[in-house]
């Protein structure tokens, strides 16, 4: 991802914002993969086949894929519980993600955490998500400070929801990033609800983006239904940060299609609102149609893609089920760096049944 190919076609056609056919197809793959994964996992959860919790990001793939796509591999990403699609876009392997959901040793946290409380710092520079909102915002400042101090052309991106913006840490982190002109991109995934709380219960202003003024940084509000809009606006922010221009606040607007978590039927979301978004503002469908109408994909390629995604999922599922649980005796290991647990192969004797 991330390399902006400026081929002739790309330059000629404005709609593709500089992206090549391969990149556009890659984006479609990511969008569809995230969607499919989300749907299948929810189904497994409902069947009682998945332990723990799930936080669906459905309807927000335009935000998740769009904000992450401009990042380089060595840029860092600090997401929340809702942003698994962003982590997948940054490069997490489906197999290990699924092993994580089932509490297996091959999960990124070796079974220590579940579901989207995941990350792969050494691999993809993604933060192992914590629940407390928005606890990673200040941490992103620290990563960005490191890049700036060493003069590295790297960027830290943090994502949180609309609800998390009311929390004090959000203010502190934005303020500090502006004072020290840190290379950060602040993303707010405004899906209009914080659990059951709609935007007006979270902040008194019409948009979150306008709050950027209070930190003297650019603030941009984009439509999360259009992945390329998100990509372009974020791309500018990423470039600016990389070039020493300091932080930007991006508010990407969508709607949370599902409940807060698997157990929540979200009756508090007005039906018409939900229907409007599902029918008219589906970021995956929209993008597929855009590519179809511009001849980048057709029935055959889309079918191939869907089948590939299904295979990827089945492969991940299989892998996860066969991955053993951690060894019970290892529960006390890896608290301290010096015990070497995290730098050695973990015990795999936990079996696959509990």
């Amino acid at each position: 991802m991330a390399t902006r190919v400026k081929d002739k076609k790309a330059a000629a056609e404005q709609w593709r914002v500089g992206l090549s056919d391969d990149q556009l197809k890659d984006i479609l793959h990511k969008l569809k993969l995230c969607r499919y994964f989300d749907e299948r996992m929810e189904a497994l959860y409902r069947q009682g086949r998945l332990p723990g919790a799930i936080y669906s990001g459905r309807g927000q793939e335009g935000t998740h894929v769009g904000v992450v796509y401009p990042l380089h591999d060595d840029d860092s990403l600090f997401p929340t519980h809702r942003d698994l699609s962003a982590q997948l876009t940054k490069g997490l392997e489906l197999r290990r993600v699924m092993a994580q959901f089932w509490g297996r040793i091959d999960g990124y946290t070796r079974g220590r955490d579940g579901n989207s409380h995941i990350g792969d710092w050494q691999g993809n520079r993604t933060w192992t998500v914590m629940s407390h909102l928005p606890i990673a915002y200040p941490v992103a400042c620290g990563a960005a400070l490191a890049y700036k101090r060493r003069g590295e052309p790297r960027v830290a991106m943090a994502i949180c929801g609309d609800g998390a913006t009311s929390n004090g840490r959000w203010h502190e982190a934005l303020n500090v990033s502006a004072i020290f002109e840190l290379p950060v991109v602040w993303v707010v995934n405004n899906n209009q609800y914080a659990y059951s709380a709609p935007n007006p219960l979270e902040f008194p202003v019409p948009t979150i983006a306008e709050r950027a003024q209070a930190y003297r940084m650019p603030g941009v509000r984009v439509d999360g239904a259009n992945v390329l809009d998100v990509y372009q606006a974020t791309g500018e922010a990423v470039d600016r940060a990389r070039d020493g221009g300091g932080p930007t606040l991006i508010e990407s607007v969508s709607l949370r299609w599902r409940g807060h978590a698997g157990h929540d039927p979200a009756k508090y979301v007005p039906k018409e609102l939900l229907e409007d978004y599902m029918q008219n503002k589906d970021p995956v469908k929209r993008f597929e149609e855009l590519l179809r109408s511009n001849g980048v994909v057709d029935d055959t390629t889309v079918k191939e893609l869907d089948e590939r995604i299904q295979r990827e999922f089945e492969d991940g599922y299989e892998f996860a089920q066969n991955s053993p649980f951690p060894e019970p005796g290892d529960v006390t290991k890896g608290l301290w760096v010096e015990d070497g647990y995290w730098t050695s192969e973990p015990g795999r004797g936990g079996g696959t049944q509990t």
Partner: protein
Amino acid sequence: MATRTLEAGAAGHGAEPRGKRDDDGQATYLVAVAEGLWEEMERDERVFLLGEDIGVYGGAFKVTEGFIERFGAERVMDTPIVEETIVGMALGAAMEGFRPVAEFQYADFMSSGFDEITTALARYHYRSGVPAPVVLRAPSGGGVRASSFHSFNPEPWFAHSPGLKVMCPAFPTDAKGLIKSAIRDDNPCVFLEHKWIYRRVKEKVPEDPDFLIPIGKAEVKREGRDVTIVSYGMMVHHALDAAETLAQEGIDVEVIDLRSIVPLDTEAILASVAKTSRAVVLYESHRFLGVGAEVASVIAQEAFESLDAPVVRLAPPNVPVPFSPALEDAYLPQVTDIEDAVRKLSAW
């Protein structure tokens, strides 16, 4: 001002939680807490609730389902995700004569409001003489595969913060009686509900609206002669299970349920140890400086002469609560671990 349409709500129909008892009139622990809250709100208009998703949604665990329809959005107040401010606001309203009950979505998020709890709320009265009748309620504890950020037991932190009363009931009746006492108490109270117990344990809970359980009083949940287990919360249930098995082996276990952590009922603990001469202190918070460290120290200092064996602590190790069932089971003391500990101690 943000107003909410109640139509959109999924919070029930303003019916009393008592209607949620089962056909035998038994209430789950969760329903018992709801009954206690409801009755106190009926009784005293100064009582109001605030917290995240407690109104229209009825609370993450549905404890306050139906409350907003009965008591209105002013007394069942949905707030943004601002734990510091939720606590601060509760304190301010209490200083002006209200009796706020704040819900944390999980006890884990009490660390997000820590300063307002331990600095502002806990210390205000000792320095000013102004009462701060605030209750902080939160679902705590593990055993439900919820991993590190949804399974924490924060009671040791708050027990070490002078000015807070701390309660961790294990049974529906105690939960109801204690939440009512906490609301009527003039001091700040931290009321920790155990989410593993919420829907697992039922009882015929008293219906008298003035039924109270006194804060600071333990209860003997099982009498025995041989070994005392001092515990609270989820672990009480494990202790009682273990006691059954041990009884069959001829070991007669006494199980003390602390119910309150602060004030700690040292009298009840010491009375039991005086009788049995042997104590296992069983708790769910991390072993190191978990509540049992205080209990064991009290026994070691005050009951030294009656002890026939070491004071044994049984508790999870000092690591974050892990997610994987394989790990969480290894983390939490299991019934068999308790049996082993008691066997060893009674053979001392």
